[in-house]
């Protein structure tokens, strides 16, 4: 899910940066109204660190390879500022690991950040409607990857017809990751619910969730 420099057209790169800058500003404003943002910074750093090193785990799938992204988990834990967290993580990955490009950080952030924000609201809303916390976490973990894969296809296709084949391969390669991240997110959220429920975006009301 890291697009390198020199792949995308200039309008797509520019659009990625504009959307990313706007979303970082807007999501911070939204979160500042909900919580004291300074208190969130340590949590923000831990989740960014997890995102930062997740790309080092190499899962070979067919002719290509994928790596965990954790955007569903980060979205559930951090809420809207997950976008900024992954933006910071992508900058560190690009500068320190040469993963992805510098010019494409905006587009790469968009592909992982927008699904993270969406799954946060799904998680919060779903829990309010009484859906099981663990089931929601599994769905959110998998759904975030699925949405990111769709966005990757949209970005590649919008760059040119030459990328149709690559977009299809990229989408298929991420299908196993949907299952892996769903299970991973479900397990981590269930554990957090037991040992540190304050990390989750809402107060747990069902006693079963705390067991």
């Amino acid at each position: 899910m890291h697009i390198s420099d020199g792949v995308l057209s200039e309008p797509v790169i520019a659009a990625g940066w504009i959307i990313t800058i706007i979303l970082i500003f807007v999501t911070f404003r939204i979160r500042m109204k909900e919580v004291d943002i300074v208190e969130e910074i340590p949590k923000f750093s831990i989740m960014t660190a997890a995102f930062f090193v997740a790309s080092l785990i190499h899962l070979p799938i067919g002719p290509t390879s994928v790596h965990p992204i954790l955007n569903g988990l980060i979205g559930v834990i951090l809420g809207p500022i997950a976008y900024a967290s992954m933006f910071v993580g992508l900058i560190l990955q690009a500068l320190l690991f040469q993963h992805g490009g510098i010019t494409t950080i905006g587009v790469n952030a968009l592909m992982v950040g927008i699904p993270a924000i969406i799954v946060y609201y799904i998680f919060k809303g779903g829990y309010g409607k009484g859906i099981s916390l663990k089931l929601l976490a599994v769905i959110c973990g998998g759904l975030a990857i699925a949405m990111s894969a769709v966005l990757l296809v949209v970005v590649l296709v919008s760059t040119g017809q030459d990328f149709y084949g690559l977009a299809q391969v990229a989408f298929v390669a991420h299908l196993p990751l949907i299952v892996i991240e769903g299970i991973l997110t479900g397990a981590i959220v269930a554990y957090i619910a037991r040992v540190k429920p304050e990390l989750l975006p809402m107060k747990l009301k069902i006693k079963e969730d705390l067991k």
Partner: protein
Amino acid sequence: MNRFNILCTFLFISIFIIGFVTPVSGHAVYMDVTQNVEIEVFGYHSETDIFSNENIVVYAIDENGEELLYIEDTLDEDALYTFTPKDGYEEYRIKIYDDWGHQEEATINVKEGGTSPGSSQLSTPIAVFAGFGYLIGLAGVGMLISARRKNN
């Protein structure tokens, strides 16, 4: 130590250990260029994941700095490619890339000779250390502001 502290410690140790795993190919591409009589190019992601059968383009650069497309080919099974310098051209820009957009470039001057690593890369553990350093610093700033607020 309560369960949350154990969880945090475990998390930090786990994500830190990832940095020491050998097959960390991810996306970064590296290139070593070696010159004897011929110029040899080797492309790789990591020690265990090489850039086999991927594309290579070589541009010959003249004295005025103008580039001429010299070679357009693919690396072999061992991710190697060897070519002979073109008469009258001392400098070459070499680019390797795949269809996913992973790419690396290096420039070599045959007159100066020697070996040119394509990119100045930090080893993965050091890069992980560096990244964690920035993030721990960020967390520290947050905790410092928070502590000052509580004192006031």
